């Protein structure tokens, strides 16, 4: 069982603040999670909830200033990534951890060919010759479904469609067979058939190489298809964390419950109007002393205004291994007579 293996990546109490002219932005507050070999952790949450900043923080990818990674530990293979030198961190990033950025257009360099950009890490971290790297680059592009790959090595990013650029990013992240793949909205620009192909590829890599994967997406269909566990973020915190089937069958946090109601279905009744979660996300100008979802929550209690609920288990398992939620309310209260 994957459950018993030691984690490849263990993140504890991560905290990141941005310094801006208008004051501090507390983007990530005490985020903890871990990842075992061959496991897929899905990360979902509202836009601005801190998903990208969490991952960028743990890989030291945020420029400082304005970012200030203020606390926490990021253990990868026994080393704390927040403590090692920039040079060591760089080799970890290229070889041990692959990263797919959210926006492929700003992370691909417009003045270099696509081939050039895939071959660079191969030559740098794997010591390949130019010819070897080119062959491997063709192979990688074919793996992510780019036709006519050898000719396409000479193309520039602007000559690729949005989804093709995204697949190039995936190819680069996979180039050095990393232990951990962190993919930030890697398939938003892809149609479902190619998405399915990429998901199959990822499942295969995880089985063959034991690659562990963090998959950030707002597409709950993708989460349902590939994740083992899911972490739901809201307002810079972990709102809920559970095995995937459990999360969909038995969501506890009012934000998760609202989120699951907003998706239109491909089968089922076609609704006249889509549901939305009313209200605005929190400003995060200080460390939240109350529940960040309180203002939009249909179940909020008095207590929610005075205390920030910590994560507590709902199934008796240790935190981070089973189902836990950061909320004072619980669906059981509803069963006991509160109006739904």
């Amino acid at each position, binding site marked *: 069982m994957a459950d018993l293996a030691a984690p490849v990546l263990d993140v504890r109490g991560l905290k990141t603040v941005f310094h801006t002219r208008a004051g501090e932005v507390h983007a990530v507050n005490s985020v903890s999670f871990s990842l075992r070999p061959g496991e897929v952790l899905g990360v979902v949450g509202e836009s601005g909830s801190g998903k990208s900043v969490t991952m960028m923080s743990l890989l030291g990818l945020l420029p400082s200033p304005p970012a200030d990674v203020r606390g926490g530990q990021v253990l990868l293979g026994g080393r704390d990534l927040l403590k090692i030198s920039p040079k060591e961190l760089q080799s970890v990033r290229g070889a041990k951890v692959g990263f797919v950025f959210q926006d492929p257009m700003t992370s691909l360099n417009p003045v270099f060919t696509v081939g050039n950009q895939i071959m660079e890490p191969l030559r740098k971290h794997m010591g390949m010759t130019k010819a070897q790297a080119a062959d491997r680059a063709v192979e990688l592009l074919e793996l992510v479904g780019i036709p006519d790959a050898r000719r396409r090595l000479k193309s520039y990013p602007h000559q690729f469609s949005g989804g093709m650029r995204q697949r190039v990013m995936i190819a680069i992240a996979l180039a050095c067979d990393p232990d951990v793949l962190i993919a930030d909205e890697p398939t938003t620009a892809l149609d479902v058939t190619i998405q399915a192909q990429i998901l199959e590829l990822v499942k295969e890599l995880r089985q063959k190489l034991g690659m562990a994967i963090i998959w950030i997406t707002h597409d709950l269909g993708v989460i349902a298809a590939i994740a083992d566990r899911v972490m739901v973020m809201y307002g810079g915190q972990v709102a809920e964390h559970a095995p995937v089937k459990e999360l969909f069958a038995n969501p506890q946090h009012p934000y998760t419950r609202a989120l699951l109601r907003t998706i239109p279905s*491909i089968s089922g009744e076609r609704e006249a109007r889509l549901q939305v979660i009313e209200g605005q996300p929190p400003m995060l100008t200080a460390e939240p002393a109350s529940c960040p979802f309180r203002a939009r929550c249909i179940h909020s209690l008095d207590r929610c205004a005075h205390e920030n609920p910590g994560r507590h288990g709902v199934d008796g398992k240790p935190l981070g291994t089973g189902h836990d939620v950061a909320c004072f309310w619980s669906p059981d209260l509803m069963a006991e007579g509160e109006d739904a």
Partner: protein
Amino acid sequence: MLDAGAQPLVQVTDLKMYFPIHTGLLRRHTGDVKAVDGVSFSINTGETLGLVGESGCGKSTVGRALLRLYEPTAGKVVIDGQDVATLTPEALRKKRPTMQMVFQDPQASLNPRMTVADIIGEPLQEHANLDEQGRLRRIYELMDQVGLNRSFANRYPYAFSGGQRQRIGIARALALNPKFIVCDEPIAALDVSIQAQVVNLLEDLQNRLGLTYLFISHDLSMVRHIADRVAVMYLGRIAELSPRDALYARPLHPYAEALLSAVNEPDPNRARRQRIILKGDVPSPANPPKGCNFCTRCPKVFDLCRQVKPDLVQVEPGRFVACHLYTNSNAGPTGTQAPISDNQQGVSQ
């Protein structure tokens, strides 16, 4: 929404958009990427046509060529009675206000150094004859329309959430009272709640102002929600064009069938439809296969498909399919074989 008397606002006939390939030291023209290769469809006034299909199949290129952000290689694009593809630069400038685009990435399409008021007001400055005060009034009106607080007018884009930024883009697209808007993946980067907000807004505006949309998206559940009819593209051509409900209930073209079967149900506890996994080489638009574009991957391929390119023909009332299964009487179900013509398609609902 669609009545029998609806008139096409947009009529596209045999649109082609090729990007030249130059190779060698002399940069000789050695071929073309046939991004869009003979596409015809029409969109009625007040209608939403969904455009879906594989990544790289030419959806964005269709959208851009329609608004002449690219110079089309061939074909006609008649919007509200004028062929946009051949308008003179001056006539095109006059026409611009009536046709707009909402771009996929709100972040990249908004100038970070301009305030929201400047961004929304920019097209007004160029095309509308308004004094400073009139311009400001119109900016506020637009902000109200898309549900942006007026007090945000002097903020810069970075201070907005993804969904708010997308609304800034929509307000700008609406500034000059367009009749037709191309929405290119307008919701791909947004979380589901904000997606729902933006889609509700687009629908409200359509109901109120009678707007006509081309809605490009890979999100088939959302397309099912918003579109009246849907065009499924494959490698630069339309494979199927059908009314929404008919398509989702029973896709006719084998590619449309495979595409719909691949949608992930957003619940791991629910049984999914049998997924059709496509095998075979994905051809390149620089070198499309002989015969049907889909013949290298089609699970139902037969000899004819590798020789003759199927035309898009009407096989059931309102349903157009480019597939020999439906036109070759030996090989499968037959329908009425009416070749597509300019005025037949689109008004047939």
